[in-house]
């Protein structure tokens, strides 16, 4: 097994709220090898986006980060501001949900890519422009030479997202962070961008962290999946393990809530209640108040992320006491 490219341990983020400090991340641990895709799956407020931002230290000024983030041997949390600018884009690059707001509306696509290449690699404008053209071709933008001259508003949503991917790849990052990159796209465009990302990732051998709330998207792209709830990873493992044999009651409930063709004519089994306020988390397991299996012990202490197999880990106090996991499509009938 090769040494992981990304190693995150005990990552914590605390922000100053109106009524005192609020802990957004309660000690997140994971690692990722080069050439692999880890999907972070979770609902709004679970901390999935904050985890990604913390990796690049793109957090609000009021936030304090602690723990350890090692990316390709670089201790990100120990870097000085000035040194950070050097790793952002070249070691780690990020693509966002809304390319329309992530790109600068006042410069052409070609200029924005070339400028990045110049800033990081000190290339001449002519070289940087040639590289911008190569990149647009790499992300399969049709008539790329003409599109270099286009402003973001002149492109369709799908092309804008491709342009942003080109921008992210412009400095050959080793780690790509993608935060819901296909969520705002139409169905027929989403699948195109997913296939493109899969292909690029394979070709360039990047480690990719992919944030999504969409189980279907995770099925299409992930090698490994981590499920987050209320600022903690509650389950992680290979895609087959987590999406096929989920162990945590929250992960099982989430998978059961996803409407698929198998469920037509049945009544959906939602998770009752809503996610907790991060400023007032229940004691012990944060999911316990919504969990059908919760017992007294669940509220006593936060359960450890315990091993179910070499790669499959679940944070549940009743792990082993619950019925063994069954593929989620059939679990509905129980």
């Amino acid at each position, binding site marked *: 097994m090769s040494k992981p490219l990304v190693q995150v341990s005990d990552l914590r983020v605390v922000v100053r709220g109106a009524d005192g400090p609020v802990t957004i991340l309660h000690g997140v641990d994971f690692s990722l090898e080069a050439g692999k895709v880890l999907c972070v799956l979770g609902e709004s407020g679970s901390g999935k986006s904050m985890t990604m931002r913390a990796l690049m230290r793109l957090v609000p000024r009021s936030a304090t980060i602690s723990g350890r983030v090692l990316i390709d041997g670089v201790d990100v949390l120990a870097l000085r501001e000035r040194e950070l600018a050097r790793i952002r884009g070249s070691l780690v690059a990020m693509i966002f949900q809304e390319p329309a707001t992530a790109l600068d509306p006042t410069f052409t696509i070609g200029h924005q890519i070339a400028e990045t290449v110049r800033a990081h690699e000190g290339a001449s404008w002519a070289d940087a422009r040639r590289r911008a053209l190569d990149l647009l071709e790499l992300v399969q933008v049709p008539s790329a030479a003409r599109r270099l001259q286009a402003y973001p508003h002149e492109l369709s949503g799908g092309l804008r997202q491709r342009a942003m991917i080109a921008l992210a790849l412009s400095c050959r990052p080793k780690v790509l962070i993608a935060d819901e990159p296909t969520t705002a796209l*139409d169905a027929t465009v989403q*699948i195109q961008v997913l296939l493109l990302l899969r292909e690029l990732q394979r070709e360039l051998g990047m480690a990719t962290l992919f944030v999504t709330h969409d*189980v279907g998207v995770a099925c299409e792209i992930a090698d490994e999946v981590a499920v987050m709830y209320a600022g903690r990873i509650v389950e992680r493992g290979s895609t087959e393990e987590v999406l096929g044999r989920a162990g945590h009651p929250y992960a099982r409930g989430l998978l059961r809530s996803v409407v698929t063709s198998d469920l037509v004519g049945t009544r*959906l089994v939602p998770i009752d209640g809503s996610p907790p306020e991060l400023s007032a988390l229940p004691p012990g397991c944060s999911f316990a108040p919504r969990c059908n299996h919760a017992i007294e012990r669940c509220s006593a202490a936060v359960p450890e992320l315990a091993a179910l197999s070499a790669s499959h880990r679940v944070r549940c106090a009743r792990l082993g006491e619950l019925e063994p996991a069954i593929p989620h499509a059939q679990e509905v009938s129980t």
Partner: protein
Amino acid sequence: MLQRALPSRSRTPAEEALLAPMPDVGGPRQPLLIVDGLVKHFALEDGAVVRAVDGVGFRVAKGETLGVVGESGCGKSTMARLLMQLARQDAGTLVFDGLEVGSRGGMSVRDLQRSAQMVFQDSHASLNPRLTLEQTIAFGPRAAGAGRAVARELAHETLGLVGLAPLVFAGRYPHELSGGQRQRVNIARALAMSPRLLILDESVSALDKSIEAQILNLLQDLRERLALTYVFISHDLNVVRYVSDRVLVMYLGKVVEIGPVRDIYDAPRHPYTRALLASRPSMDPRRRREHAPLSGDPPSPIDPPSGCRFRTRCAIADAVCARIEPMLAQGPHAVACHAADPASGHPLAGEAAPFAAHAGVVS
């Protein structure tokens, strides 16, 4: 129907009318809604015209759910606004339970806007942050002529119907609620007018999956309990399949296919419907999609292609597709495609399954 436990001594006629849906005048076989030839264009500053809705017709039977799917720019939200008469159509008619809307002797727009109610996608933006939930829900009935007491009772009753205990929630403000609870309030507000038709425009799209399932269950319960009819607009094809009895597929302002939900999902006939269905993520990591069925984005509804609007992205487009616009055929499962019409002159029109070899994988 809603259970009315209100004191009857002092009700006004307006209040009496609000406490029950408007009567069924056409009988069970009269469609609740007949839409015919609906057109809405928007003129832009530079003289271009957005053909948002361009000749749309369909029927919605009483008690059924019609799902509406399509990508951005296909006109589904404009159509929803036309159904509510929040925008006035350039041409075409709406017939609600046998009565033409806005015509002499028909149904007034005001009555339509009571009998049809809408629930939007953004649960936060559609609530006034300065009003309590009770005030928000009572607002419609008050505007329709109900007194304070009756409007308040209606608010409490509908809060109960959507699963929010009135004593706990009536005095709360929207910012004190979660997204799922806010969407319940929006549904309660719609129900307070005793509607017969609910237009749900991406009503569950912004919710987390675990909450979406709660709201879908609630909508199914309410439909049965209150004998409601739904027009359910969504970009989520799996959710539409789950809730709908029939499905309408739109592309650039036109209906390209309409039919019973099973026919649309198991035997789609329009190449666009097939591509849309084949674009869904597989839900099985061992059987991933290998090809995207379509390339590029949907074209803009400004200046749409001639003839069939889908032909620029269609794998089986022929010369006839650019020349002549295909009409939506008659019948329960109708499609607007030359390849499905033996008389069109399309080279594949005679084949039994003209798309099978061309349209990629359909699960």
